């Protein structure tokens, strides 16, 4: 196997008419990785906080999610009301996170919650989000014990609780937050960035919702 490795690397170097990177070139390349230069960042990814929240909500709705702006105390009630409005079962798998545990779910007597990852029979998932990206109305989910990935994917309906303060302008802001949380070059095992419900354009180029992931996505944007 190491023979295959050196065969590929040597062919690359021969084609580029040089040996292994060394000296100043190597230093420059290492420096580029250590402090990554920014590309052009769209103006719309650089709004002040209030504008960011508004833009996030707009793009999320354009991308077929529904959005409700609520206070933290209102979250359990809004979740129960959303499920009732859409004739969905009042039963959900919920991410075992301290953020969600801190909400008053007991106030909703009919809502039946199970903490943990999702299984095939779950119809509804409730999760938090690591961040929201205003630029495209995109949610960022970081995997870990408090956020199993299956919750983002298996159930038909995904209800997401997102704090206003976690809505950032563009992708670059998310990378900054990931580095701050997981260390430089560190990453959660899986980062799912999700823009609206699952969809496909594979039949006659017409977008249809609910291909393999959730058909419905409801985002609760929580005021601070």
């Amino acid at each position: 196997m190491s023979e295959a490795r050196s065969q590929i690397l040597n062919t690359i170097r021969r084609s580029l008419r040089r040996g292994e990177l060394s000296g100043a070139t190597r230093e420059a390349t290492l420096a580029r990785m250590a402090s990554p230069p920014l590309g052009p960042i769209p103006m719309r990814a650089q709004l002040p906080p209030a504008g960011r929240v508004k833009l996030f909500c707009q793009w999320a709705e354009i991308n077929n999610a529904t959005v409700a702006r609520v206070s933290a105390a209102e979250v359990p009630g809004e979740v129960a009301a959303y499920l009732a409005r859409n004739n969905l079962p009042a039963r959900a798998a919920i991410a075992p996170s301290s953020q969600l545990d801190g909400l008053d779910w007991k106030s909703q007597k009919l809502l039946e919650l199970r903490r943990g990852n999702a299984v095939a029979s779950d119809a509804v998932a409730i999760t938090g989000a690591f961040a929201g990206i205003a630029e495209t109305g995109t949610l960022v989910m970081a995997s870990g014990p408090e956020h199993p990935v299956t919750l983002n994917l298996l159930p038909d309906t995904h209800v997401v609780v997102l704090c206003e303060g976690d809505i950032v302008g563009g992708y670059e802001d998310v990378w900054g937050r990931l580095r701050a949380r997981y260390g430089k070059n560190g990453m959660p095992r899986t980062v799912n960035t999700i823009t609206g419900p699952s969809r496909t354009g594979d039949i006659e180029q017409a977008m249809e919702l609910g291909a393999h992931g959730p058909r419905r996505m409801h985002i609760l944007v929580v005021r601070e």
Partner: protein
Amino acid sequence: MQSTSHAFNENVDHALADPNLQDSLGKLKVGFSERRRQAAERLPEFEALRDRARDIKNHALANLDFYLEEFERKVVALGGHVHWAPTAADARDIILKLCQSMGARTVAKSKSMVADEIALNEHLEAAGIAPIETDLGEYIIQLRHEPPSHIIAPAVHLTKDQVADTFLEHHAKLGFTTRLTERNDLVAEARYVLRQKFLDADVGLTGANFLIAETGSSILVTNEGNADLSNTLPRMHIVLASIEKVIPTLEDLATLLRVLARSATGQESSAYTTLNSGPRRPGDLDGPEHYHVVLLDNGRSSVLGTEMQDVLRCIRCGACMNHCPVYGAIGGHAYGWVYPGPIGAVLTPQLIGVEEAGNLPNASTFCGRCESVCPVRIPLPKLMRHWREREFERHLTPAAVRQGLALWGFFARRPALYRRLTGLANRVLALFGRAEGRYRALPLAGGWTRFRDLPAPQPGGTFHSQWARKRGAR
């Protein structure tokens, strides 16, 4: 996949005579390309982002060995494994052995052009392992035993009715005995059938849109979420990626993502962009226990440093084919192998040889739309021209074309004779009547007029004589 690129002309005849295909292709113009135009207009920074995307890929290619080694180092530190595959056969063997190590009977497969390039499905099937395509388009064509006809919309050549017939034929045994008429019902049925296959699969195999050297992450961009189920539910996740997919940092990824979805489908963002970094970690409730990345070369390292290097910038968005008048007329299958359209016309001779695929670069009007929409600004017409030259040098061009060119060259090198002859031809053509402005049939020119009209020469003489008069008048 067995190439039929050598039979390009026959493939084209077949494609032009297929009413379902022509019906489907008619939707390309109002579909992807119109949506791309709108998305580009909505983002004032789009052109600057394309420049940056080109520069990032150029930088990554110029330091490819360095970034691949960095990527490997990070993946290993995360508890994953990296396998190096110089050839398609190497990659097939590595993947088969990995599947066998899990005792795999089925593999949930997310759309991968590289997997088609190395004919992975056939290899797994021969070893008794069933690869299950989970991208809706790939699933449809797998049921129909067809190759993909587009790099991001593999079933774009089919109409809804054809899909309905295919589902009825294959799903009836599962209890779905009604022929469906609505697109959303077809999607729902495929979702139901495939969900169980995801849950049963022993291995998930995906491609990668990008690899990040900084973090050791592999990036998957989909709308359906099928790649995510493939890399979350089975116990092993195998990433198959070609070596030119590596880019330095997350910031570079941000730029490339901003041009990818807009160029491909005209979306602001695809529904799912996923960064996977290694296997399941302590405390995780789900995710694969084993994480392997197979890096495929298959000739790419030899393209570096040559006049063809620009082709390695490609991020497989499909914009070049969505905007190509030739692709729009003949579809993807006529190209005869994995990669159709302008990018296919450039890549295919590179990957399977100019002897087999030398005719593909001739299938271009050189209108330049492909280059004008390419998010990483690959000069596709220039690269096609390069292949035409190679084809000519190797005497692969048909005799009639070579003789015609030689004859033209003889006169072109003798300007006085050339002017006399073209003047004569101009007058003779006028005798055939130029009232209509074009000829439907001409003696000795049947090869041309069988498929298109020849424009009649306009009054005022040849270009040379008009030019001479204009210069004289000044």
